[in-house]
């Protein structure tokens, strides 16, 4: 058994062995992507519900694609289009879902802890597709997969995460996963967005961008949520770009082999300059492809798939 739990709620709960085990399976799925037939029909007859209580395009499409490539039956509903009105407790939602006899639930919800709560009250597997600012484990896994493809073993490798760490589930999942694999993580952003107390998790907080990226092997640049707190947590987009934007000039100061990641969607010329976003140092589309592979691996493993049956990877 690669995964010990029936659920994937966060990288906080996963061991280094589990993370590496999932990534191994993901790389085998990733190898299939280049074949003319990309489907692996091992989920035939099983139902996966994608419940997105909060808007999402990329993550939802990536999950759907992963599920389709495994030939699962898929039901999608989102807060906007379903009768699950605002104010209904998650317990009611859970009971409705349980009554429908589903095999797996993928949940995106604005409340931290919501995936954990559903995992406790439901018998089916639950995959957390983002719970508020808490965790986004599939994003964390795909980020780590992308880093490992270029850097190999992450022990001693330097990863700098830049942006609104306080409100970022991506940052938290990265921190948990990367520290477990022995990477040295630095958090960078305006002091209003980077809680110093996170150093207790074994990371470094450095609010000066130049210092934070000087000897980094990877920059993971987070999306700045323009709707959140402009004017209060930072003065504005121009100021953010001036102080924390990854510009060509910043890129020139990096180690020559350092590369740049972004979970998307990007705000061009805010957290990342357009030229950098289109430039040779970014690996954003690799992240997207790896996202599908990681999600396929998790769904496969949670459904009791046999890792040996997939054949060799790359």
């Amino acid at each position, binding site marked *: 058994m690669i995964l010990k739990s029936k659920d994937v709620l966060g990288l906080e709960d996963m061991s280094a062995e589990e993370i590496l085990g999932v990534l191994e399976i993901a790389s085998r799925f990733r190898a299939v992507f280049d074949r003319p037939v990309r489907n692996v029909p091992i989920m035939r007859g099983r139902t996966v519900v994608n419940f997105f209580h909060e808007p999402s395009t990329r993550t939802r499409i990536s999950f759907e694609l992963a599920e389709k490539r495994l030939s699962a039956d898929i039901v999608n509903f989102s807060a906007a289009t379903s009768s699950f009105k605002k104010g209904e407790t998650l317990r009611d939602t859970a009971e409705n879902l349980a009554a429908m006899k589903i095999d797996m639930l993928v949940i995106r919800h604005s409340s931290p802890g919501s995936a954990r709560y559903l995992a406790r009250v439901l018998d089916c597997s639950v995959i957390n597709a983002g719970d508020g600012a808490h965790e986004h484990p599939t994003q964390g896994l795909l980020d780590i997969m992308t880093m490992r493809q270029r850097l190999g073993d992450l022990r001693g490798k330097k990863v700098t995460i830049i942006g609104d760490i306080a409100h970022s589930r991506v940052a938290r999942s990265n921190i948990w996963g990367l520290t477990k694999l022995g990477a040295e993580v630095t958090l960078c952003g305006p002091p209003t967005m980077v809680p110093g107390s996170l150093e*207790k998790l074994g990371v470094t907080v450095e609010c000066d961008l130049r210092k934070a990226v000087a000897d980094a092997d990877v920059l993971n640049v987070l999306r700045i949520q323009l709707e959140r707190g402009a004017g209060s947590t930072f003065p504005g987009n121009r100021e953010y770009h001036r102080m924390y934007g990854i510009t060509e000039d910043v890129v020139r100061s990096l180690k020559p082999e350092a590369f740049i990641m972004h979970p998307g969607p990007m705000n061009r010329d805010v957290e990342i300059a357009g030229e950098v976003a289109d430039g040779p140092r970014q690996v954003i589309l690799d992240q997207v492809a790896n996202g599908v592979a990681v999600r396929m691996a998790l769904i496969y493993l949670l459904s009791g798939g046999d890792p040996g049956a997939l054949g060799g990877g790359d």
Partner: protein
Amino acid sequence: MQWSWKRIPAEYLVTNVRLCQNGKIGRRKGFLHVKKGRIEQVGVGEPSGEGLPALDGGGLVCAPGLIDMHVHFREPGQEEKETIASGSLAAACGGFTSVVTMPNTEPAIDHSGMVKYVVDRGKEAGLCRVFPTGAISKGRKGEQMCEFGEMVAAGAVGFTDDGSPVVNGGLMANALKFARLLGVPVISHAEDLSIVGGGVMHAGYWSARLGLSGMPRAGEDAATFRDIELARATGGHLHIAHVSTRGAVEIIRRAKQDGVHVTAEATPHHFSLDHSRCRDFSPLFKMNPPLREPEDVEAIAEGLADGTIDCIATDHAPHTATQKEYQFDQAPFGVLGLETAFGVGVTYLVKNGVMDLGKLIALMSERPAAVLGLPYGKLEEGAVADFTLLDPDHVWTVTVDHLRSRSRNSSYLGEELTGKAGATFLRGRLTWRDPEVIGAD
């Protein structure tokens, strides 16, 4: 004559008890002689009333009825959470004989008719004395001051917009001046909303780790400081509710040294639990002010021990199971307190060596009575016979069956506590008995 739990006589003795008087537990076995709802005699040795029915106290501590100066009984408006009757039973179950209700009901207790309503409903329930506080401002909106004089005449014992701070400092100053004239305190819910923002738990390591928005200590410290300066300027009696930070304790300590008329209370959860309890996202640990850091918990205990904080008050805040089924960030603030307060006090203050049992009981009886100027909280001849028999050694694990509130939102469910009320008497009449502690059926 034999003692009977079923028919409590008008005159009786309680024997074989350790008396708690003036913050001290008597070493020798004592007795209480109750006659027509008053204490006829209290002391050690041989009681005067020979031949009277006698309740054998079994060596329990006979204490003044406990007083909680901060409860939310939700009536009128949210009777699904609690009523004055159900809250009164929860109080009796915790050893309390007097409570002070907060005015943030729906509608708010903001005129004399509403005050009288709460008083009457309390008398109707008849399980403890219910003293209402009135709102400072009409509808608790922080704009127009309520008619303090009329409300005091109807039975209000203080004024507060608890649940929300009084944002307008000028209004707060005026409230302190009027309340001073009437000899009652203004109770401050000290929270600077512009600092606390939309926080749902203490701002610190755990909020950062869990991705929940934080409520910085500075929000409480700044508001405490402002209200103390207003009390200093006006000479009014300011009472700080539910102190939860080290900084606020220090601000209050300094103000007391300066002679400012300020008193303060702290809740059992703030001297026993810290913010790490939020780690599983359980709304049973969501309250305002929030659970803070271990050093704050320690500072609250120290403040209680050295007298900076005058008394323990529970901030008993019932919410229905449904409301506590929401996710942590969506759930309402507040937890129960009455049924577990004594046990939490013994477990976290007495057993940890912060204070002795006599002092704990004083913080829950005599001291809150002194803050409010109420003639209760003492076992002495001629006083009203409000008393409780406490077993400070009774070990119990809190379950929903131990709760008498209409709600179930206790932070201590599943936790083992030491110390429980065995029987509670109001005006000499039994309001609560736990057969596991005394007088097994």
